[in-house]
């Protein structure tokens, strides 16, 4: 009979894979990270060089699912360090973290030091307009206000602020600049994608000439050589959405985790991470690397200060207003 053989095979492969999967838990520092695996590989290389005694066990995933997992594990934490998510997202989970006064804090941009919070800024997103010249008729928009012109109807896209934290940051910034009226005008013009990534993909594929997205996401296409893509920093001021990392409260190995924390904020590693991912570093001493990448320096970009706490508090009201304006 041939069929029992197939069954044995299946059973054998099942047992084999179970045993090999359980062998990954013996590491010293457990790093939960939402960063891409090539970024993680850079970090592991740097750690291997600077702290060869630390073994790092990496669990990767979306930041939401990692944070929920840390929450689920809080009675017996398995994670030591979480890297990284937006400040506003971290705020929702702040009881899961314990603060650490890193000696690197002095080298960071003031807005990213987060001295009062249990996390530290690692990088910041900058909201931009991503423009695809191939499908653009006429001039590109220069500012958020330009986009409120009905002429842009069907040509501009953003992510759904109810699903995407970066889209909410954009919406809140526009609300701060132009009030309810601005939000309503934007709602009439813009087309909404279900997710953050839907925006830059749609613009890169030429489905829309203009998308409201994050600097790093758009810059990946420019650096990749897709010539028709360019970035516009709105002249009426753009918004930052800082991201941070944090020690997990009662993690199994806090001392080594702090060493990893400091290395993650070190100049060399931040520079390498920036050159790989185009996410603006939280350190203030990397202007050379930023200029070399072709991105403008922070001091040359017009920025509107956003109070992250107020943005969080107003979320429900603003989303209601948005839903109502969208009809």
């Amino acid at each position: 009979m041939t069929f029992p053989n197939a069954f044995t095979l299946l059973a054998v492969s099942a047992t084999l894979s179970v045993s090999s999967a359980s062998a990954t838990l013996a590491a010293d520092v457990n790093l939960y990270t939402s960063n891409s695996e090539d970024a993680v590989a850079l970090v592991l290389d740097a750690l291997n060089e600077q702290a060869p005694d630390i073994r790092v066990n990496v669990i990767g995933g979306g930041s939401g699912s990692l944070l929920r997992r840390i929450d689920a594990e809080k009675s017996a934490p398995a994670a030591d360090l979480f890297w990284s998510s937006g400040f506003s997202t971290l705020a929702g989970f702040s009881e899961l973290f314990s603060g650490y006064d890193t000696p690197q804090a002095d080298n960071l941009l003031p807005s990213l030091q987060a001295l009062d919070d249990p996390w530290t800024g690692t990088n910041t997103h900058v909201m931009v307009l991503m423009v695809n010249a191939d499908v653009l008729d006429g001039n590109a928009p220069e500012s958020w206000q330009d986009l409120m012109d009905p002429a842009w109807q069907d040509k501009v896209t953003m992510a759904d602020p109810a699903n995407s934290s970066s889209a909410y940051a954009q919406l809140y910034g526009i609300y701060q600049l132009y009030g309810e009226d601005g939000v309503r005008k934007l709602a009439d013009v813009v087309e909404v994608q279900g997710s953050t990534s839907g925006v830059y993909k749609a613009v890169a594929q030429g489905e829309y000439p203009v998308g409201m997205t994050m600097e790093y996401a758009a810059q990946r296409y420019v650096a990749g050589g897709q010539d028709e893509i360019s970035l516009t920093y709105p002249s009426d001021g753009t918004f930052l959405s800082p991201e941070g990392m944090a020690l997990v409260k009662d993690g199994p190995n806090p001392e080594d985790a702090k060493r990893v924390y400091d290395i993650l904020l070190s100049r060399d590693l931040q520079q390498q991470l920036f050159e790989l991912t185009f996410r603006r570093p939280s350190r203030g001493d990397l202007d050379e690397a930023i200029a070399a990448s072709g991105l403008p320096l922070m001091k040359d970009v017009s920025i509107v200060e956003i109070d992250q706490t107020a943005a969080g508090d107003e979320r429900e009201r603003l989303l209601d207003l948005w839903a109502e304006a969208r009809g």
Partner: protein
Amino acid sequence: MNRFFPWVLLTVLALVFLLIFVGYPILGVLARSFIGEGGGLSLDGFATFMTRGRYLEALMNTMILGVVVTCTCTIVGVFLAFVVARYEVPFSNVIMLLPLSVLIIPELISAQSWVMVFGNNGLVTNLFDAIGLEFPRFYGWFGLVYVMTLTFYVHIFLAALAALRGVDHSLEEAGQSLGTAPLPTYLRVVFPTIMPAVLSSGLIVFTLVVGNFAISIALAQRVALLSVMTYQSFISELGGNPTMQSTLATVSILLVAAVLFIQKRYLAKRNYQMVAGRTPPRIRLRGWKSIVVSGLAGLIILLSLLPALVVLVGSFTVSRGPVLYWGQFTLEHYQRIWTFNMPVIVNSLKFASLATVLGVTFATLVSYLLIKKRTALSPAVDYLLLLPLTISGTVLGIALAQGFNSGPVVLTGTAMLMVLAMMVRRLPFGVRNASSNLHNISNSLEEASVSLGVPPMRSVRNVVLPLMAPGIAAAAILTWVTTVAELSASVVIYQAGQETLPIQIFRLISSDLMARASAFGVINMIIILVPVFVGIKVMKVRLFSS
């Protein structure tokens, strides 16, 4: 009397399992859609659905898409089945591989590879551009209908082919000898007899379209669809609203249930029994007819297999970030998988093999109980087994995640829930395959064994199981194939560290890293293909006998 003893107990166990892992979570979803934010009974979810946002529009779009794709699939599937059944075409051997193409190419990959061909930056689009023609916009209705048709027509093709081969040729001859021309004979005699088979498979296509997640999310940028909204309500970065998730899930369950009901009513009135007729001879076509017919059939086949080719080439193509450089080749994407992503492959193998072993064991047991040892409880088992068919993977995932995140059995976040979701989703198909030749096994064989003094359990093992083996093997292979490619249920319940190949592909495609996604896609296809190949070639399993 121990004649019934083990069987009743086993039926009860099967029923309890189905109640806990199918009945309870699905009922939970239905119930939660009537619970408001405050916790009391409320219709807020449905009020929101009817009045706000694009929910109603999404429901309409979903129904229109379901009907349109079912129609296009019927046209393509019946045409191809007719050609294969009635004419000698040059590549009829290749045609029999078609059903496999749909099984081995995950939907997500096929959608994305069509974007690479027809999207705004696609190969064909750029070609049209170069000669000054404008290619129609692929995102939206055109792309959705096109890709879904090419993905789902195979279901109708298989059913129509089986039915056409069963049509007694003498009926046709009778029609024609009574003076009816060939075409009206087909329309009045042949098509009505294959209608029930086409309609049942059409219903499957409809449910697949309505529940489809992978193709919809890739192509429905300007078209609101229920399945995408259901997923997004659950996966929102900022924590979803359980009432709205359940409401959306309930609406899609009701939609499929309604269509199922209509179809049952229709089929009940029409029942054709073929008296084992003779199959009509295949005609050899000549001249322009031959060119047109085999050309069309060949085109359908080529288009069905093209995504696999695009993915294969893409996986070896140089990329810088999201930008692909066609014509420049590299092994980098595979090297990266080797260095970083072996756990993903291990997860896929682990979950799928566990789901297959558990699912096939359960399916074998249940189909034996349902066909050979019916008890008063059997109808309940029958109905519970139908339930997973009426819900999409996304809804099943939501039902399981919500159903087991608190209470006596907490499974949310565990690998076990991933395995359960994959297993439950394919259970109806597994049972159907495992029972396919059980009807033909005479009870007298087993009774003879029992009457000769062999205990009932051993009689089953020594007499019935070996005879069921081909059906079980087919069930195992098909369960394996579909669980390895499973995305829509697992993507809503997986947690960090539990990524499978399709989830990884989905995440890479979301970040627009197509070349790397393609490399995972090729590995996924290989993992799917190997058991199928071994099954067909080595073990001579007939996969598509039903």
